[in-house]
């Protein structure tokens, strides 16, 4: 009972239950071929690409901000890599550095605007989202006369960023796991993590307590934009080409993943494990449906239902978390 109680109080409880519910649904109503699902690469690859962006976006949301410009930063990352190292034939290091730099730059702009103006970050990053789409499209047409550019990456870059492990699983899966471990350490074990929670809980009090909230906000925006351009870079290296379009679905997908993962839209609550499992759940719903006999057109209905259920669960668990464990109260009274 006590173990169950403390499990339900954790931010990732809703995500874990959602994951189990989705799997159960697929097993009982979808006649899912579990073995094929587990061995399949499609949903794992999908989850990894999404997850690398979802973690820093989730961190930002714990800190009380949001970043939707990532939708433009994925093609920005892949196009920068492909234009520099493919079209201009510069060493791949230059293309990669370019992709990451553009992430840092746009993240810096988002962060500075968020701390210097009173404009909500949803609007700021909507502005940079649309703006960067324009920059990527016109930049590509202006420089290359084309909207898609091919790229030939050397062996080591392919090995590190664009390998298909066992011929099916993208190497970004390992990056995702590494990022999850690093960010879990930062958020839950370091002082920096405590500052993010405090900032999302009450920005003014956090500043009064001496936390450098402005610097922290800027760093978090840089992390999210750069992680998106990193994903774009990996995709360009993997597919040997880049297009100006694509990436927009990531906005919606990251938000669903981290919300299912237990983040609170008002900030101050959430966990990296939650984001990880939320992303997995989302990937299984949207890609795993191909392994069931359910018509895949239904997958969005399932996602919508799952989102609402997960949020309702998270809300309930959070109220539970605020209360004191019932077991303890009895002990005190006795």
């Amino acid at each position, binding site marked *: 009972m006590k173990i169950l109680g403390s499990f339900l109080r954790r931010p990732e409880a809703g995500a874990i239950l959602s994951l189990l519910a989705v799997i159960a649904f697929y097993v009982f109503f979808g006649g899912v071929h579990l073995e094929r699902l587990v061995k399949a690469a499609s949903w794992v690859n999908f989850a990894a690409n999404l997850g690398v962006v979802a973690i820093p976006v989730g961190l930002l949301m714990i800190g009380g901000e949001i970043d939707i410009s990532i939708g433009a930063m994925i093609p920005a990352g892949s196009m920068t890599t492909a234009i520099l190292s493919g079209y201009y034939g510069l060493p791949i290091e230059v293309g990669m550095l370019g992709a990451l730099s553009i992430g840092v730059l746009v993240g810096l702009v988002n962060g500075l605007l968020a701390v210097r103006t009173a404009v909500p970050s949803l609007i700021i990053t909507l502005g940079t989202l649309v703006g960067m789409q324009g920059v990527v499209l016109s930049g590509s047409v202006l420089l290359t006369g084309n909207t898609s550019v091919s790229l030939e990456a050397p062996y080591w870059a392919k090995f590190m960023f664009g390998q298909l492990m066992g011929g099916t699983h993208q190497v970004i899966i390992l990056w995702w796991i590494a990022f999850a471990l690093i960010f879990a350490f930062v958020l839950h074990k370091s002082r920096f993590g405590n500052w993010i929670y405090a900032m999302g809980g009450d920005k003014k009090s956090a*500043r009064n307590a*001496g936390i450098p909230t402005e610097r922290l906000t800027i760093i978090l925006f840089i992390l999210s934009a750069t992680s998106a351009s990193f994903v774009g870079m990996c995709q360009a290296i993997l597919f040997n080409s880049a297009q100006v379009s694509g990436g927009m679905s990531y906005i919606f997908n990251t938000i669903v993943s981290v919300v299912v993962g237990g983040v609170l839209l008002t900030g101050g609550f959430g966990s990296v494990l939650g984001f990880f499992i939320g992303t997995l759940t989302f990937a299984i719903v949207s890609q795993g449906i191909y392994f069931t006999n359910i018509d895949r057109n239904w997958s969005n209905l399932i996602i919508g239902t799952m989102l609402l259920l997960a949020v309702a669960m998270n809300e309930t668990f959070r109220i539970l978390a*605020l209360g004191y464990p019932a077991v303890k109260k009895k002990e005190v009274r006795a």
Partner: protein
Amino acid sequence: MSDTIPVLELRKVDKSFGPIDVLHEISLKVNKGEVLCLLGDNGAGKSTLIMNLCGVQQPTRGDILMDGEKVSFQGPKDAADRGIATVHQFGGTFPLMSIGRSFFVGVEPTKGWGPFKIYDRKRANEIAVKAVQDFGITRIDDGDRLVGGLSGGERQSLAIARAVHFGARVLILDEPTAALGVKQAAHVLRIVNEAKRRGLAVIFITHQVMHAMAVGDHFAVLIRGAVAADFKRGDKTREEITDLMAGGETMADLEANIAGYMETHDGHPPTIVA
């Protein structure tokens, strides 16, 4: 004797926001082990005054002195480093954080070395729980409990215990009893007295005369941004203080006004405008 030098002193402090003058020539002193009650109507400038004392804002003119020396606070951290701890009127705690984590916000204890320094949850919880229990709140015994699950009085007590723990010399409390019931308020007042006993200089803002009289050694009444009265405990009666807080108009006058109004309006009390 160092006892005669006030821990914190304001000399002719003005604060304006552009053309709006909010504070006008405020001069005040607080000594060690003394509670200064800051009284005044809504909008009198009490919160603005403490914003200037805790470094969130800087005075437009005038001096702030600590131990007789001029100081200037560039930010809240500056003031905190000097030993000024503030529990603000709104917020100040993090409802979704654990007691241990919120107690140490910004000054988290760590263990380990280099990039692997980790937040020492066990030690943070132990110290935080001990600090609040030392103030008599024995109901708090689990540092992992979320702050949002505490009562308003417990939260205020936690904030005060935190300030005292981190070696504050001046404790500024902006309406800590405002939203509290009788029992909870009594609790907070006890903690204010305990802080005083430990030798802190306390600035206590309240609208409740009873609360002020329970802990105050010294009283200052602000009316429209200026110190309208400055007196010691026992110098004035409760009625006199209440009158001052109502902005100079006596309570008796107010009551007479209402009575007169009711007589001419078939016994209806006046409707309140603004």
